[in-house]
């Protein structure tokens, strides 16, 4: 099977795909039961050696002129080799056939968990310029194809509430010396509500600062394989995809759609190849465990059953004769289609950081500025083409905290790693400083792909490859 790159535009070859097979299950993996070999090098490799210099881990091996090979023990499934191969010689594992069958199966309730970066890239596959936004037309096209929708941005909002709460907990325990902290989370539009949160900070004894983000599965795998000592610093939150899956199968199934959770088949639609492996991680079956405890289900299932990349989704639409560009962009969202601006910027480097800072700012200052206020605008943490950015963010404290700690404000040092870089070039010294106890940061975002998920391994292949220039320039552009 082969997928067209942007309908065959330019000279760049098509990305070919292959279905998961027993070979992938037999490959040795870090966690027993998860999928490996998400990307593989085919015979079409001419040995140009481009992929090797884009690989963050050194898993891609080979010399110029030779067929390259992936060392799966070292591979973190980021797919950067794949989108950077000019010869279309790297193939991707695809669940497309399985998802197509589920969509035809009347007994299955197929839920699309659609990631933020997909909506800014999908249109490229249908002849539109890069960056063309498809939001409600994407939802409508998905519905036409037979999906129900759980916005991954909705789950990103869940993530940021958890990850932000965890960050506040770590700061309160390690930086402010508090034993407990109480705050309100409120005004999440369109339904206004208030939730009181009281954290017993004892649990943060083993969760030191700085806190790293944990929503990029390739980065998590990188940490597990190359820097396991850093794991206590990683946020304990799951990624948005892995929060969306169980929420859809529990709350969604029981309270919103009112269907038997066993019928729900969740499909992550991601800009990312690492998400394919992430969904297969054995610990991600919490919906099944929770429902089993309640005696509601018997058969075991995963939180996320399959993952399609943006390219896979475009092919699915093509096979079904659906062109998402032809739908209206003015549809009103319903159920899990709502989300905040914080959720949507997860797709770009610095976006998770900015969303977490907005959350921490709101909670610690007790203020809720208007949506477009400059106070929310932490754009200086956006990575763009810089391999790493850092910033100091000062947050005024609300009166209760002022009294309790005797300070008017706190200043957070934050860092965004924009792409792990060739053999960890952008991240190694950050990690080493943290391990040596000399890091000045409170919060560090890591995105494996340069530019963030927008430039993920599952995105349409951009024939000019703008991320390429980095390795040949002494200074960032």
């Amino acid at each position: 099977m082969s997928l067209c790159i942007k309908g065959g535009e330019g000279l760049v070859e098509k990305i070919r795909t292959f279905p998961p097979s027993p070979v992938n299950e037999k490959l040795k993996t870090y966690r027993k039961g998860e999928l490996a070999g998400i990307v593989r090098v085919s015979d079409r490799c001419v040995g140009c050696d481009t992929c090797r210099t884009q690989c963050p881990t050194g898993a891609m091996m080979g010399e110029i002129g030779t067929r390259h090979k992936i060392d799966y023990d070292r591979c973190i499934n980021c797919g950067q080799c794949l989108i950077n191969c000019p010869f279309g010689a790297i193939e991707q594992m695809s669940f497309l056939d399985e998802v197509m069958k589920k969509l035809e199966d009347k007994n299955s309730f197929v839920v699309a968990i659609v990631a933020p970066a997909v909506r800014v890239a999908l249109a490229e596959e249908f002849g539109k310029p890069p960056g063309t936004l498809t939001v409600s037309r994407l939802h409508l096209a998905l519905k036409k194809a037979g999906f129900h929708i759980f916005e991954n941005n909705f789950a990103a909002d869940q993530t940021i509430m958890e990850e932000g709460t965890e960050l506040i907990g770590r700061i309160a325990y390690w930086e402010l010396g508090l034993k407990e902290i109480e705050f309100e989370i409120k005004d999440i539009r369109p339904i206004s509500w208030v939730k009181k949160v009281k954290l017993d900070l004892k649990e943060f004894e083993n969760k030191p600062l700085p806190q790293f983000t944990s929503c990029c599965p390739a980065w998590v795998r990188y940490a597990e394989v190359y820097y396991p000592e850093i794991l206590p610093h990683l946020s304990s939150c799951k990624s948005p995809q892995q929060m969306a899956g169980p929420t859809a199968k529990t709350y969604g199934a029981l309270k919103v759609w009112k269907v038997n959770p066993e019928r729900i088949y969740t499909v992550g639609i991601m800009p990312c190849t690492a998400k394919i492996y992430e969904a297969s991680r054995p610990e991600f079956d919490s919906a099944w465990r929770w429902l089993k405890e309640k005696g509601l289900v018997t058969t075991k299932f995963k939180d996320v059953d399959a993952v399609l990349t943006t390219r896979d989704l475009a092919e699915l639409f093509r096979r079904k004769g659906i062109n998402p560009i032809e739908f209206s962009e003015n549809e009103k969202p319903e159920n899990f289609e709502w989300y905040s601006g914080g959720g949507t910027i997860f797709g770009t480097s610095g976006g998770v950081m900015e969303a977490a800072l907005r959350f921490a700012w709101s909670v610690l200052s007790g203020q809720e500025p208007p949506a477009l206020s400059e106070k929310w605008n932490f754009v200086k943490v956006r990575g763009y083409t810089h391999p790493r950015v850092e910033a100091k963010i000062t947050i005024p404290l609300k009166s209760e905290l002022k009294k309790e700690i005797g300070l008017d404000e706190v200043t957070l040092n934050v860092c965004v790693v924009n792409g792990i870089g060739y053999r960890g070039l952008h991240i190694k010294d950050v990690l080493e400083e943290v391990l040596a106890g000399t890091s000045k940061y409170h919060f560090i975002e890591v995105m494996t792909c340069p530019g963030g998920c927008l430039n993920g391994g599952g995105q349409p292949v951009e024939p000019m490859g703008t991320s390429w220039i980095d390795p040949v320039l002494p200074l960032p552009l």
Partner: protein
Amino acid sequence: MKEVVLRHPLSSRIVHFVNMICWYGLFLSGILVYFKMVDNYERAFLMKLHILFAAILTLVIVSYIVVTPDRVFLFMQEVLNWDKDTIAWWKNFGGYPYKFLGKTKIYKYIEKFWFAKPGCPPQTKYNAGQKLLGLTVIFSLAILGFTGWFLYFFREALGKNGVLLFFNLHVWIAIIVTLFVTFVHIPLVLVNWPDFVSMFRLGSGTVPVEWAKEHNPKWFEREVAELKED
């Protein structure tokens, strides 16, 4: 003693020789790798060899340009000098088809065609065919060198389409020009034996005066005129 005239000075002969060895070294290593005719380990070795040949060739050509710019200038002037006789040469390929086929049975079938007519308009140092070859080699060396080294050092700056374009230009120009050199240039030089000898013999790069008068009369007249002036 037989009268001779200098056709290929030592510097040009060295460059030609190095070019020939490196070109075929580059071609063979490149072909074996591109068409995957050998296994991975051998391909890795052959690519190292390819890069070594490329480095030697680049160095020699750059040195030639830097050390003997006058020779480079004269060579460029010669191959770019297309007068009416150069154009006229193409009307019957300098009489070569007649030379090869004139005495064969085939000739009676082709004698009516323009390219089969006998005779050759007077040529300068290089005939029109050699001028075209010279230009082809110069431009292909420039393109192959540029694309090759760019792909080796700066491919990231090109983008994927750029890499594909450079890669395909590199491979296919090399193949086409090598075929041209192997099946046109080499047989024709072997026919012009004194020219071949002057290029490859140990010793001076001269040709007999008689041969020069016959093949390159314009060049010969100019050389003689220059000598008289001196």
